[in-house]
């Protein structure tokens, strides 16, 4: 008897829990696009179908357990087959499923319609950051985890957007259809923002498409959802949706800044300037593998006291510019400016007890990157 009461209590709890489940932060977000709302309603319809079926099936089961228990003197009946009942309980689920497939198909077709986009963005996954390129706009940047390492290691107070913040978010205009082209430089990643209901794998060597039309300005946060190695948890996606006018301003600012960055490569940089800039670049791009103290970890080589690197500055620059095939060491040729490359190389050659004393000037790098083939 106690068994039964416990079962019933369990059943009641789940009924009580259901509204809790629908509360904010416990359920799928409704999101800010037409697609995300469609998906949300599909999710809720199928959820309630399951609840109704569950109530009927579990109801019949618990009724039988209670009503026909041996201790109450129940005598077992002998029936063991009933074709028409079986046909009915096969046909009804079939009909429900057909009913469910219709709206699901419509939503899916809509999700696959990437035509007539106002803006194309190339999203590239890299261990462990995202790179965004505004196609046709000459604007490109990487977006790295913004949460300081101290917060992760527990030596600092965790912020509100712990692990869901980046140094540079993807900025998108609201109301415009944005086509996302996704690929990867190394392993498979997956780009996901729940509020936008966009999740698409980024696969090396192949390009996937998805699209989004955001309806409200705001900041939307997500994460990489395909296991991509050790820092899989630390490559968030942040999308900042702004009004189209603001977006155009932002694009102009970006281009301006890039031009300034390029022209600043011409002048002579002092050692401290390079070191300061280099430390910044190193912290956001390199430290997750080679570690803050340059000691490396696991398969990631130490840079402190790395003789191959210290003996040959060309070799060092080549690694940073071109990367190493088949490893997490990406090519930074298109990701970093000449100033940044010069700065980070200089930093690596003079930090953590490395005392080469070399400083690599941005102009040297710029020359190296520019056309020497002709």
């Amino acid at each position, binding site marked *: 008897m106690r068994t039964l009461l416990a079962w019933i209590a369990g059943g009641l709890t789940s009924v009580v829990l259901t509204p809790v489940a629908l509360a904010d932060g416990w359920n799928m977000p409704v999101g800010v696009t037409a697609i995300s709302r469609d998906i949300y309603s599909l999710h809720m319809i199928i959820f309630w179908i399951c609840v109704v079926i569950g109530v009927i099936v579990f109801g019949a089961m618990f009724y039988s357990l209670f009503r026909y228990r041996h201790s109450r003197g129940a005598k077992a009946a002998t029936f063991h087959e009933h074709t028409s009942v079986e046909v009915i309980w096969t046909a009804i689920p079939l009909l429900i499923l057909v009913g469910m497939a219709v709206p699901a198909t419509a939503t899916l077709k809509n999700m696959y319609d990437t*035509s007539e986009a106002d803006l194309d963005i190339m999203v*590239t996954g890299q261990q462990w950051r995202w790179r965004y390129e505004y*196609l046709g706009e000459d604007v490109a940047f990487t977006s790295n985890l913004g949460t300081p390492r101290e917060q992760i290691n527990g030596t600092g107070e965790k912020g509100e957007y712990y692990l869901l913040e980046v140094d540079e978010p993807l900025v998108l205009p609201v109301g415009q259809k944005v086509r996302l082209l996704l690929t990867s430089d190394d392993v498979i990643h997956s780009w996901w923002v729940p509020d936008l209901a966009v999740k698409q794998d980024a696969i090396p060597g192949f390009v996937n498409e998805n699209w989004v039309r955001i309806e409200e300005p705001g900041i939307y946060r997500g994460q990489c959802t395909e296991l991509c190695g050790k820092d899989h948890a630390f490559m968030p996606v942040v999308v900042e949706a702004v009004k189209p006018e603001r977006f155009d301003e932002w694009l102009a600012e970006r281009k301006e800044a890039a031009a300034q960055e390029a022209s600043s490569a011409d002048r002579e940089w002092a050692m401290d300037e390079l070191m300061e800039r280099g430390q910044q670049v190193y912290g956001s791009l390199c430290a997750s593998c080679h570690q803050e103290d340059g000691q490396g970890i696991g398969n990631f080589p130490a840079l402190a006291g790395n003789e191959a690197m210290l003996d040959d500055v060309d070799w060092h620059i080549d690694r940073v510019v071109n990367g190493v095939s088949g490893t997490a060491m990406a090519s930074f040729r*298109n990701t970093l400016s000449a100033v940044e490359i010069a700065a980070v190389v200089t930093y690596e050659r003079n930090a953590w007890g490395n005392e080469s004393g070399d400083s690599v000037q941005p102009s040297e790098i710029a020359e190296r990157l520019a056309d020497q083939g002709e």
Partner: protein
Amino acid sequence: MSHHDEQATNRDGVRRTVTRTLVVLAGMFAFAFALVPLYDVFCEVTGLNGKTSNTAQMLVHEEVDTSRMVTVQFITRASAGLPWELDVETRQVRVHPGQSNEVSFTFRNRGGEASHAKAVPSVSPSEASVHLRKLSCFCFQEQRLAGGERLEAPLVFQLTRDLPADIKTVTLVYTLYPVQPAQAAVSPRGPIEEGDSA
């Protein structure tokens, strides 16, 4: 049937069952490997995954469909470990289905030494890939460039008239990958066999 006979029947039965299951087993193992080329064929027929044919195709002489324009975008990417750059003369072209078009790509080896590379194509949306016919493409074979060398290579392509009407933009992405010549020789689908048929 005596007890003894029965055991003999059982033994025969067991032997038969084991033989049959072993045959199925061998068949399934072979099937797993057969799936690799089957998948390629399936991809090529259906355009699954945006793969394109890796051999040159013939121009289909068909009337140019002047009633609609399709935008073809080109994106070039280099991958790690290769001091090369790949550029395209134009970021996008507007074409009519049926028309044949030529676009020029430039390879540059920025390194000091000779190296090999191959450009691997991918088409999006994947449904378009069956309708994209490449009459000539640098992507059919690997390239070798001496240090500092530069090479211009054309892509000649045609979008067939039966391209679905809802496809208005086709994106063609080329990713440059380094090739070790030794590695290429044993690749099951490496440049060797493709070079033969190209």
